[in-house]
Every structure is written in C-alpha cells, then in structure tokens.
C-alpha cells in the first residue's frame, strides 16, 4: 500500500495567479500520476511523472499550463498556472505500488478560482 499526502488540501485563488500542489508518498515509486476532477465530473489524467525525465502529458493538457516536477522517487509537484475559474477542480496525485497494479490516491487538493 501507499500513503499519499497532498498540500494544500484546499485553497481559494485569484484569477491569473499560479498555485503549486505538493504530493509526498511514503515509499519510493517509479511513476506518479496527476488527475483532475472537475465539479460533478469524473477523473481525467493530466500527466504521468517519472523521476528524472519530463512528464508525459495527456491530450488537452500542456506543460506551460501544468508544469510538473519530480525531483525524487517520493515527491512531485503540480503547478496550475495563470488560473481561471475553469481550473476550479480537485487535483489528485496517485501512484501504483507493488505488483498488483492498484492505484492509490491522495485525498486531493480542492482549488477554487475566483
């Protein structure tokens, strides 16, 4: 299993600003995933973050808007840049550990953009 801590748990931000979300895992993992859950919607994968390489972004998401860092095997950050109200969402960090393929999630970071 994995215990994932995300900071901040929630924040209210002004339009045009940027916010960085941190994700800390209690064990070393190869890949970390960032998902977005817009209000009343399902989860959408933003990008996959490997340690030591550039993140891989899904269609519709770009590095300039969602830069990701992965400095080591237990930590990652996602920045939401130049925010607009449409970025109001829950952002979730997740990892796969062991050999069972189970995806573990943090509790999410709820962003409200005014």
């Amino acid at each position, binding site marked *: 299993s994995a215990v994932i801590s995300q900071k901040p748990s929630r924040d209210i931000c002004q339009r045009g600003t940027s916010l960085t979300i941190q994700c800390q895992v209690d064990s070393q993992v*190869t*890949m970390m*995933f960032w998902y977005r859950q817009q209000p009343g*919607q*399902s989860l959408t*994968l933003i990008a996959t973050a490997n340690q030591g390489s550039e993140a891989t972004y899904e269609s519709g998401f770009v590095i300039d808007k969602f830069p990701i860092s992965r400095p080591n095997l237990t930590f990652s950050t996602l920045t939401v840049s130049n925010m607009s109200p449409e970025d109001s969402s829950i952002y979730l960090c997740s990892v796969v550990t062991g050999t069972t*393929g*189970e*995806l573990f999630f943090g509790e999410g970071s709820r962003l409200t953009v005014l």
Partner: protein
Amino acid sequence: AQSVTQPDIHITVSEGASLELRCNYSYGATPYLFWYVQSPGQGLQLLLKYFSGDTLVQGIKGFEAEFKRSQSSFNLRKPSVHWSDAAEYFCAVGALAANFGNEKLTFGTGTRLTIIP
C-alpha cells in the same frame, strides 16, 4: 481508445436493500477493471479489482463485482447496503501493462449513491 460507461448518474436505495451499480467498458485487449469509492471530501479508495481468473471478485466493505466479457460489463453489487455506503462510485479500466506501474486508468463518470432510512 478505452472508455467506461456508468449509465446511472444517481441511485437511491433503502438501507438494507440490495444494490447493483452498472459499468460497461470498451477496451481492445484484456482489461484491468476497478471499482473505487469516493466519500464526500475524501480521496478515492479501491473497493475491488479484476485482473484475471475468477470472474466474481470480492472486495472490501462487503462489495463484489462480476466480470462478464461477453457483455463488456463489470457491475458492482452488495446484498445489503448500510447508510455509510452513501458515496460516489467510479468504475475504471486500465491497460494490461507488461511492466506494472505503467497503467493509465480511464474512469467512468461515476454513480452517486444515496441511502434512505
């Protein structure tokens, strides 16, 4: 491309009654299938998963799901629901990756479960 359909947006069930949440998937190879639960203000918790073998899988909290390849379905069931089961339930499908840790999950839109006394 893989996809997941959860046709029921919202289901209301009486406490003690049985429950079935529907999930249909589209995937060109052998799928990994998952059910997650999200309680209000919480992250996602895995209820159960299917990789291979017995098509009826047991999960936590008394839930089970049955994989039916012919129907491309993976419906979640519980014989008797409790008030604490009120939550959002997500079905997900992932690639059968040769290298574990490389899965990308596609989630359904979720089914919100309300329990009435």
